[in-house]
């Protein structure tokens, strides 16, 4: 290494850094192994499986949106096709007693996703932005509607099912019990996350970022932005296919919902709410959205409405997502000025919660009168029972909503002021250092 490189280049990771880095993955692996011993119920295992699948799918989506700047409305196509192919593959393997064990079957889903991305992506990746978004939507609708028409392959409304236990056993595992599926999903999640992380640290990964930032300039440093987008699209298709395959294995069924607009929308939600600017963002988003959709659907009938509201709030007020919000505090923690903002958060908490409670009360009352007007007015939402016909509830909701908002607005301003003080202080300290 020359003098210039060692003097001005970013320092290469030291042995300690490397140990920390690989240690992190090892700890993650250990946590995944031990998790079922702590949360062993069937319900939690299923939840973990859904989270793992969602993590792979969301990260694959972020190869497009966060890394390469392509907004896709049809990413579920590659997820769904991966799922369908795997169901058929399991049936064929089982019927013919082929020597292929279940753990490598997700690869079939991945290759399916890759193949279809390679076929369908060439045209759509010519442009990014609106053109790409529109084409992705068109392709998604095309595939989703053909899923209902081509019944022999997609099985119509009912879908296609398979029995995953009929395959070659490895180490005596039949993959019937959920715990064995958990380990299968966990292993694939870890492999896929490591692979997708490694991808961001390659020449291609960096050129993806360059294409996202400025596709025009990329052409003048020797790269064809179309090729960069196309390769990124193929990778995204591959990992989406693996996620779809794991979902199909988990449920032992694939149906048209796998390919649909709702599935494509959910992955956009998860990636964006988590934060598309950070590698870990979609992981956070996948965990959050999975818990939210499982939890909210038990708590309220109109959970999708709340879903949409959360999404809008994130887009408007926290475009960096949950991860972006957390990462904002890093410079403050480093400079030790975090304590300057924390009190303002506490002040804001009560009125903001009051406002949200008022909003929930209002929404649930309106839902009662518009969606189920004939039902008993004693309803239960978020575990709280109340009478939707009572003027007292209406009044309380209105007071909480409007009063909460009025007070909360002032406390939000305090947060803003505390923030600018804390960041100025942090910057001064950083400048002095």
């Amino acid at each position, binding site marked *: *290494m020359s003098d210039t490189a060692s003097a001005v*280049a970013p320092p290469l990771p030291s042995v300690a850094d490397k140990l920390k880095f690989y240690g992190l993955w090892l700890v993650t692996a250990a946590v995944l192994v031990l998790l079922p011993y702590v949360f062993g119920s069937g319900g939690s295992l299923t939840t973990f499986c859904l989270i793992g699948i969602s993590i792979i799918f969301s990260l694959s989506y972020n190869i497009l949106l966060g890394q390469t700047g392509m907004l896709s409305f049809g990413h579920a196509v590659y997820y769904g096709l991966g799922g369908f192919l795997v169901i058929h593959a399991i049936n064929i393997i089982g019927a013919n007693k082929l020597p292929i064990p279940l753990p490598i079957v997700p690869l079939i889903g991945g290759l399916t996703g890759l193949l279809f991305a390679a076929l369908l992506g060439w045209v759509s990746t010519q442009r990014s932005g609106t053109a790409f978004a529109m084409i992705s939507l068109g392709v998604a609708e095309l595939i989703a509607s053909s899923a209902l028409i081509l019944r022999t392959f997609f099985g119509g409304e009912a879908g296609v099912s398979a029995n995953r236990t009929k395959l070659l056993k490895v180490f005596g595992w039949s993959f019937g019990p959920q715990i064995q599926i958990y380990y299968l999903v966990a292993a694939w999640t870890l492999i896929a996350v490591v692979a997708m992380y490694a991808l961001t640290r*390659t020449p291609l990964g960096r050129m993806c*970022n*360059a294409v996202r930032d400025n596709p025009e300039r990329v052409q003048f*440093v020797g790269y064809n932005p179309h090729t960069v987008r196309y*390769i990124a699209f193929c*990778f995204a298709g591959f990992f989406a296919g693996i996620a779809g395959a794991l979902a199909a294995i988990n449920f032992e069924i694939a149906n048209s919902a796998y390919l649909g607009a709702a599935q494509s929308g959910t992955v956009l939600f998860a990636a964006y709410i988590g934060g598309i600017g950070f590698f870990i963002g979609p992981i956070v988003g996948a965990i959050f959205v999975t818990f939210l959709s499982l939890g909210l659907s038990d708590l309220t009938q109109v959970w999708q409405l709340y879903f949409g509201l959360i999404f809008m709030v994130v887009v408007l007020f926290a475009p960096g997502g949950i991860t972006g919000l957390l990462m904002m505090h890093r410079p403050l923690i480093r400079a030790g000025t975090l304590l300057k903002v924390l009190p303002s958060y506490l002040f804001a908490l009560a009125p903001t919660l009051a406002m949200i409670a008022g909003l929930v009360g209002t929404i649930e009352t309106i839902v009662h009168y518009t969606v189920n007007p004939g039902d008993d007015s004693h309803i239960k939402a978020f575990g709280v029972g109340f009478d939707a016909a009572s003027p007292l509830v209406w009044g309380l909701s209105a007071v909480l909503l409007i009063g909460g908002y009025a007070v909360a607005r002032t406390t939000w301003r305090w947060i803003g002021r505390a923030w600018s003080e804390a960041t100025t202080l942090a910057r001064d300290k950083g400048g002095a250092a």
Partner: protein
Amino acid sequence: MTPAIELRGVEKSFGNIKIIRNITLSVAHGERHALIGPNGAGKSTTFNLISGYTKPTTGSVLLHGEVISGLPPYQINRRGLSRSFQVTNVFANMSVWENLRCAVLWSMGQRYAFWKNIDNLPEVRERTAEILADIELTARRDVPAGLLTYAEQRALEIGITVAGRAAVILLDEPTAGMSRAETERAVALIRRLTEGRTLLIVEHDMSVVFGLADRISVLVYGQIIASGTPEEIRNNPKVREAYLGEEAA
């Protein structure tokens, strides 16, 4: 010897309007050639035609004796021609280091590699560090390009342009909007970084032009009205009338 860049009867029309009318120009290897002319004369359009950003309506552009007009910009760049932009055109969310590294990758034969760890490429690292030191942004290495000052962004713009070691460099108004001191530093930088290469530069600052260029071409209304050494251009009556005369008056 074949010239580094040659334009043969190049014309460009947008609709019915002819922006470039029959330009013939040749820049020798290792020459520093300045393209000057009043606003709207077609200087940037000429750059766009050479670098593949737009295609000529008629005529052809040759790089080292090979026709490049009609090729996409990245093909032209791979053949050894690199350009900068009048309006700063960097990768705004990426750090200075990443900007320069992306500008180096293709010339180092990395292509679309997705199987190599980018931090394990010593030549890429070394070349990036070299450029970073050259443009004197070492202290700003990890700052996102979008947060740099204007002069720093201009330096980065030049750094990205020369990073790939292209034999032919096109700079579009590299000192526009700079203070006198910044301009002097930028000129010294350009002189250093384009050593031994062919340079075609568009510039409004006449002291920069006459100080830097071996030869000058004057573009007025999409036509080259004169080409020659700085001395010849200074004394050319047509140029004085069409362009320099305005400044003298």
